[in-house]
């Protein structure tokens, strides 16, 4: 369930124009389409933050692990914002590259949080596969 939003973002992020299929009226600009994908990715990040909070309060993960996830999600947010800036500047390729990186990171954190069984040990093993996403420069 949790990976579905991330996969949807990837499908749309693969091309900012691929999701423009208006049923009628004025076609949205690439920036408008990007805004829809950006907010979707941001909502995915919000879900990951909420799941991390729930896992921490249920003692399924430790405070240092939660801090590591938070740091990764903060880095991801910075990349999303960089993608937004690139989209505003008209750099569609850079915006798409950053968006894809951010979504990949969200998907990995999501996968770790929904792994079964979820314990501090299994979560650590899953997080060890994660590398911090890097901003693709404009």
């Amino acid at each position, binding site marked *: *369930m*949790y990976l579905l*939003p991330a996969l*949807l*973002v990837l499908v*749309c992020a693969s091309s900012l124009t691929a*999701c*423009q*299929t*208006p*049923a009628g009226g004025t*076609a*949205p*600009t690439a920036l*408008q*389409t990007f*805004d*829809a*994908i*950006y*907010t*979707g990715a*941001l*909502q*995915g*990040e*919000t*879900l990951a*933050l*909420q*799941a*991390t*909070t*729930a*896992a*921490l*309060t*249920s003692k*399924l993960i*430790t*405070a240092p692990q*939660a*801090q590591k996830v*938070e740091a990764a999600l903060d880095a991801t*947010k910075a990349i999303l914002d960089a993608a937004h800036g690139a989209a505003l500047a008209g750099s569609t390729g850079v915006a798409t590259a950053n968006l894809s990186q951010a979504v990949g990171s969200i998907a990995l954190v999501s996968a770790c*949080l*929904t792994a*079964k*069984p*979820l*314990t501090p040990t299994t979560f650590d093993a899953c997080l060890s596969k994660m590398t911090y996403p890097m901003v693709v420069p404009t």
Partner: protein
Amino acid sequence: MNPAMIIAIIQSLSAAIPELVGLFDRAKSGLPVSEADVQAILQGYNLAHAQLDAAIAAAKTSG
């Protein structure tokens, strides 16, 4: 993991799913999101971030 923990996590995830699906539906159909939508999502993000900060602080305090 006991059932209550599983339910707590699922509830936290599922609460925002309809809104998220709606956003992607808009992206797929070509309908733009409004500035108000963006601001609402950002507020939700900031709230979730603050809640995680509070949970981390509480977990550290309780040892």
